[in-house]
């Protein structure tokens, strides 16, 4: 008590002044740290575009990789990435949405679904290269799919399933109970309620989740290196559409492949300066695609949110 009694008003004021100074100081420090982080990244990206600028041009998109840096292009990588993304989306969407509908609308609450739920959350924390190892052991050798576009697509689909499931569940959960009750009140079955009422309302959320997942998958390098993507491919997979009956063929699924991030990794790891300009150009394109997909996802979410009024 003696110490308290000795404090004069001046001491208190001085202490308060000091504390307020610290408070102001932190506002500045916080702003600086934030701006510094954003600025460093902005500089890095500008540098990427500047280094790659000399390589942008029609030839870059229509050439195969080459031993000569100035003649190399990303044709096979871009085609490979497109095909892999197609397979990934085709697998991840139905499986992810089905799993989410089951968990959200049908599953009873017991220890088993509890374990599944913890599991789905934890899967998001598994390093992506471990998915690559899984795919190497399971798809490539056990199922005998080989080092193909199909294996790569399945691997990336597995990788983004947790993202799609979590996003879909959130979208399903945000549909008000009243809508379900009303449909049940008219005698609809659980499936009819889900198909005709809940799903249409959650399309926006599901699409957003899928696109965010794909934007993650497009940049993933480690898992597809693990399953054995080649970095030097000077041919295109067989075309999926042909002129004669039956007009579609699935040969391309079995084809060997390369992809944009692999191509970039290959160019970065070469000591030759000229190839690093190629790497920068490929990186800038990859980055552009990722940002575009994210922007698209935000836009879709915004559009759907505006249309729905309950």
């Amino acid at each position, binding site marked *: 008590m003696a110490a308290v009694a000795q404090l004069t008003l001046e001491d208190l004021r001085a202490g*308060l002044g000091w*504390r*307020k100074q*610290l*408070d102001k100081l*932190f*506002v500045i*420090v*916080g*702003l600086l*740290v*934030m701006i510094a*982080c*954003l600025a*460093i*990244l902005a500089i890095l990206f500008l*540098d*990427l575009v500047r280094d790659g600028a000399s390589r942008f041009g029609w030839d870059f998109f229509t050439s195969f990789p080459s031993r000569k840096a100035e003649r190399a292009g990303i044709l096979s990588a871009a085609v490979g990435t497109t095909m892999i993304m197609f397979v990934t989306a085709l697998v991840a969407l139905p499986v992810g949405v089905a799993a989410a509908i089951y968990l959200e609308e049908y599953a009873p609450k017991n220890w088993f679904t509890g374990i*599944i739920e913890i*599991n*789905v959350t*934890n*899967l998001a*924390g*598994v*390093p*992506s*290269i*471990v*998915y*690559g*190892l*899984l795919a*190497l*052991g*399971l798809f490539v*050798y056990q199922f005998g799919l080989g080092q193909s576009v199909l294996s790569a697509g399945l691997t990336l689909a*597995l990788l983004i*399933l947790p993202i799609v499931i979590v996003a879909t569940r959130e979208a399903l959960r945000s549909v008000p109970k009243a809508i379900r009750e009303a449909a049940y009140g008219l005698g609809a079955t659980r499936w009819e309620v889900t198909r005709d009422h809940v799903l249409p309302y959650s399309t926006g959320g599901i699409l957003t989740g899928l696109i965010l997942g794909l*934007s*993650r998958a497009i*940049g*993933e*390098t*480690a898992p597809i*290196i*693990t399953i*054995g993507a080649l970095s030097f491919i000077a041919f295109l997979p067989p075309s999926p559409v042909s002129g004669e009956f039956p007009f579609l063929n699935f040969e391309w699924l079995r084809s060997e492949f390369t992809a944009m*991030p692999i191509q*970039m*990794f290959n160019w*970065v790891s070469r000591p030759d300066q000229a190839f690093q300009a190629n790497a*920068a150009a490929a*990186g800038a394109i*990859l*980055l552009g695609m*990722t*940002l575009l997909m*994210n922007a698209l996802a*935000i836009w879709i979410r915004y559009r759907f949110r505006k249309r729905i009024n309950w």
Partner: protein
Amino acid sequence: MFTTLAIVAILVYESSGFFKHVSLKEFLTDTQWTPLFAEAHYGILPLVAGTLTTTMVALVVAVPLGLTIAIYLSEFASHRLRETVKPILELLGAVPTVVYGYFALLIVTPLLQMIIPNLPGFNMLSAGLVIGLMIIPYVSSVSEDAMRAVPRYMREGSYAMGATRLQTALRVVVPGAFSGLAAAFILGISRAVGETMVVAIAAGMQPNLTFDPREPAATITAYIVQVSLGDLPHGSIGYQSIFAAGLVLMLITLVFNVIGFFLTRRFREAY
């Protein structure tokens, strides 16, 4: 749903072949990792050391910066600033990691070489710094959510006692949100441990038993990439060794997640 089971099953199945060939004792105590040389050594320690070193460097960058940003956004920034900055920060998490690897090797390393003259072209320092930068968005975003979940009346109680915003943030909000902050750090750690392309590009691929971040070294993930780039026959010892390495990687992330789980439980505040 079967993915986790499948991952564990495949890792255990494929690495069982490896452990038939290599004793567990050698795996854990040998200080060299040269499975592809004629005179093969199978000691996982150098790879684990590399992984832990890059992770430490990344955390030294990401934890203070991420926490500062989170405190600033949650306690000081206006609503509008927060809503603008958050999506931008989250975009940074979406940048392909191979692009970050390019930065580490071709921009960050030359800059560091100006400061530390004898720095080799491949080093763990620049890889770790870039990974740190990469995981800042994860750390700050999850931390901020945790801090905003601390109820308003606790802050008001603190203000009423005459505390400033900074004092409230550090002594009321941060302790109150501790379990959420722990979760954020664990998420950051798992990302850093599992990060592959940045270390594969910028840290070199030579296994090296050292905790000095200025030296080149390989991490577990970089080793897996290195082996996969070559053409290894199915069932060979090199092929099996990447599954053993993957198993160790899974175990490390698992250990951190378990620690995180108990931290979260221990410090959970109920409001």
